[in-house]
C-alpha cells in the first residue's frame, strides 16, 4: 500500500510539473507578453519600446529560467531601473530591496500580483475559491443524494417501467449542458415571459448573503448536468450487483427485497459511483465557470474568465494551478478510495 501511495504521489508531482510548465509556456508566449507590455506601458508604444520594456522587466531571459523563478527553485531575477535603483522579481513596489527574499515563487507562497485587480493573486484566489466552495457544497448536497437515489431505484429492477422512465430522464439530463439548462431555467422561472419570477436570474447578491431565491437557479443548473451521469453510473453498478450470486442466495433464503437492496446490494453498488463522483470534480469546474459567468456570481470560475479575458498572466497562472491541483488531488483520492473500498483489489 505504501509503495502504491508513493508511486501515485510521484506521478502526481510529475504531472503537476508538466502541466504547470505547459500552462506557463502558453501564457508566456511572445504575443501574450507583448500585450502585457502594451497594457502596462501604454497601448501606443512602438515595437522597439515593447522589446526594451520586456528586457527591463526580465521577460527576455530563457524560458526555463523564468519557469524556475516562478516555481521558486531558481533565485528571482534582479536588475536596476532607469534611476539605478534595484528592481527584481522578488522586490515588491515600496519594499526595501535589501530585505527582499532570494527566491519568490509559488513554492514560497508568492503567487505574484494581478494586473487587473491590483491585489496579490494568492489573496484573490483564496477569496474566490471560498465563494465557489459554497456553491460547490450546495451542488454536492443536492446532486449526490438525488443522483444516487435515481440510480439505485432504476437499477433495482432492470427493465421495469420505473427503470425506463428514470433512465430516459438521466439521458435528458446529460444532454443538457449548463449553458442550456441555465438559459431554460432563467426563462422559465425568472423572466417576464412566463411571469413566474420565483427566483432571481442573477446570483450577484448571493455573495453577500445566500437566500433560496438567489442561489437555487445556479445550484440547480450545475447539479442538473451532473445528476444524469452519476445516476447512469450508479444504475449500471446496481444492475450488475443485483445479478450477483449472493443477492440470489439472499433472496432464496427469504430476505425481503427491501432488505436485500438496503443491506446487501447498496454497499457494493456504491463503490463505482464513488470514483465517478470524485472524477466529476473536473467537470464540475467546467460547469462552475459557465454558471458563474451566466449568473454573474463572482467566484473562482468568474475570476478565471476575467483573468483570461484581460490577459492577466499571474492571475491566470494562479487559477490554473488551483484548478489542476483540484483535478490531480481528486484523481488521487478516487484511486486510493477505490482500492480502499474494494477489497477485491489488492495493491502490492
Amino acid at each position, binding site marked *: 500500500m505504501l509503495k502504491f501511495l508513493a508511486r501515485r504521489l510521484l506521478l502526481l508531482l510529475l504531472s503537476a510539473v508538466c502541466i504547470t510548465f505547459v500552462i506557463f509556456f502558453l501564457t508566456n508566449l511572445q504575443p501574450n507578453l507583448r500585450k502585457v507590455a502594451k497594457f502596462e506601458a501604454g497601448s501606443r508604444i512602438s515595437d522597439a519600446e515593447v522589446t526594451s520594456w520586456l528586457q527591463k522587466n526580465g521577460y527576455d531571459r530563457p524560458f526555463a529560467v523564468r519557469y524556475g523563478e516562478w516555481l521558486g527553485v531558481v533565485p528571482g531575477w534582479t536588475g536596476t531601473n532607469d534611476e539605478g535603483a534595484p528592481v527584481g522579481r522578488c522586490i515588491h513596489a515600496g519594499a526595501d530591496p535589501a530585505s527582499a527574499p532570494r527566491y519568490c515563487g509559488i513554492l514560497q507562497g508568492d503567487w505574484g500580483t494581478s494586473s487587473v485587480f491590483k491585489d496579490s493573486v494568492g489573496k484573490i484566489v483564496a477569496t474566490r475559491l471560498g465563494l465557489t466552495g459554497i456553491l460547490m457544497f450546495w451542488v454536492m448536497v443536492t446532486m449526490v443524494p438525488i443522483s444516487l437515489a435515481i440510480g439505485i431505484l432504476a437499477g433495482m429492477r432492470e427493465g421495469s417501467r420505473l427503470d425506463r422512465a428514470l433512465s430516459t430522464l438521466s439521458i435528458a439530463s446529460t444532454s443538457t449542458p449548463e449553458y*442550456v439548462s441555465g*438559459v431554460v431555467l432563467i426563462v422559465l422561472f425568472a423572466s417576464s415571459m412566463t411571469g413566474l419570477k420565483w427566483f432571481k*436570474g442573477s446570483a450577484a447578491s448571493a455573495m453577500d448573503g445566500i437566500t433560496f431565491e438567489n442561489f437555487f437557479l445556479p445550484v440547480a443548473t450545475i447539479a442538473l448536468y451532473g445528476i444524469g451521469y452519476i445516476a447512469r453510473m450508479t444504475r449500471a453498478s446496481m444492475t450488475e450487483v443485483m445479478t450477483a450470486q449472493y443477492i440470489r442466495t439472499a433472496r432464496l433464503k427469504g430476505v425481503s427485497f427491501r432488505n436485500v437492496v438496503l443491506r446487501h446490494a447498496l454497499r457494493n453498488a456504491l463503490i463505482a459511483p464513488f470514483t465517478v463522483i470524485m472524477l466529476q470534480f473536473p467537470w464540475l469546474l467546467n460547469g462552475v465557470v459557465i454558471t458563474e459567468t451566466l449568473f454573474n456570481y463572482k467566484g473562482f470560475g468568474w475570476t478565471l474568465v476575467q483573468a483570461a479575458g484581460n490577459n492577466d498572466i499571474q492571475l491566470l497562472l494562479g487559477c490554473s494551478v488551483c484548478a489542476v491541483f483540484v*483535478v490531480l488531488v481528486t484523481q488521487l483520492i478516487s484511486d486510493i478510495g477505490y482500492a480502499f473500498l474494494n477489497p477485491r483489489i489488492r495493491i502490492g
Partner: protein
Amino acid sequence: MTPLNWSEILLAVALRLWPVWAALIATFALSIIFKRRLGLYGKLFDSTVGMIGFALVMFWAYTALFAPMIIDHDVLSQVGQMKNVVPGTPMPDGSGYYLLGGDHLGRDVFSRMVAGSSVVLQIAPLATLFAYMVGITLGLPAGYFGGRLDDGLSFLANLVLAFPVILLFYLLVTPEIVETGLPQYVAAVIFILPLLFLLLLLNSRYYVKPGFRNAAAAVILVAGGWTYLSLVSEKDTRIAFLPDALDWIHVPPNILIVFVSVIFVNAPTVFRIVRGLTLDIRTRDYVAAAQTRGEGPWYIMLWEILPNARGPLIVDFCLRIGYTTILLGTLGFFGLGLSPESPDWGSTINAGRKLLTIAPHPAFVPALALMSLVLGLNLLADGLREESLRD
C-alpha cells in the same frame, strides 16, 4: 400584416421545414421496409428509444443539409425595427415574418438557428472522427504491445485529461496563439495520423500483393497528402508552402484552432477506451490463432482486434459527437474561436443571454436546438447499445 399567434407560428415553421419532413419520411420508410437486411442499423428500428434518437439526429442532419432552402431571411442582415421582437412579428416592408422573433441586432432567430445547425454539424462529427483516428492509431499499439510504450502514452493521455477543459480552451483558443502558428503545428501533427492509419490499414492487409498495395498506397498518398497539405497550409500564416491555386480546402485559422482543441480534448478519452478494449480482446483465441499463423502485429491490431471492438466504439462515437457539440457550444458561449457574427448555437446563446429576462427567445431557441440534437445522439447511442447487446 397582423402578427401570427402561436399555432400559426408552429404551422409556418413546420411548412418551412418541408424538405426535412420529406427526407425524414423517406429515410424511415426505406429503413423500416429493409430493416432485416441492414444489420445493426436495421435493428435500431426495433427499439423505440433508438428510433426517437435517430429521428432527432436525422432531423438536424437534414436541416443542416437543406439549410439554404429553409432559411427565409438573410442570416446577417439587420433590420432596425425588428430588434428583440416577439415570435411571429411581420416584417416592416411586408415581406414575410420573423417566425421565431428577432435578436438584439434585429436578425431573424429562426434562420440563424437553421444556419447554425449546418455550422455545428459540419464541425462536430468531423472533429470526433479525427479524434477517433488519433485515439485508435495510438490506443491499439499501446494496448497490444504494452510495456514502456503503453506507460508513456497513458501518462500523456492522463496529462491531457487532467487539464480542465475550459482552461485549455482559454489558453489555446486565443488570437495570440493563432498568431504564433501553434494550432497549425499541432494540426500538422494530428492530421497526419489519419493518413498513417489508412496506410497501415492497407499495408498490413495487402503486403502479400505488392502490386495492388503499391498502386493503392500511391492513390492514398496523393489524394490524402494533398488534402493534408491543403488542410494545414493557409495563405498568410506560418505554414503556407502550398501555392494558393492548389490549396483547395480553406480553413480559417480561428476555425482550425477550434477543431484542433476539440480533437485534443477528445482524443485521450478515445485512446483510453481503445486501449482498454485492446487489452481485453488481445487475450482472445482468434488473436492467438492469428499470431500462430504468423500475422504481423499491425494486421492483428487493425484487422482482428479493431473490427471486434466496433460495437462499443460505435456507441461511444454517437455519445462523443454529442459531447463535441456541447464543447463547441461552450466555446461559442465564451465567445472563443468562432466569430461573434457566426450563427452557431453557442455564440447565439452567448449573444442572447444578456437580455434573457426581457427577450428570452434569441437564446432560448438555439438552446433547445442544441439540447434536442445532443439528446437525439444520446438516445441513439442508448438504442444502439441495447440492440448490440441483444445478440
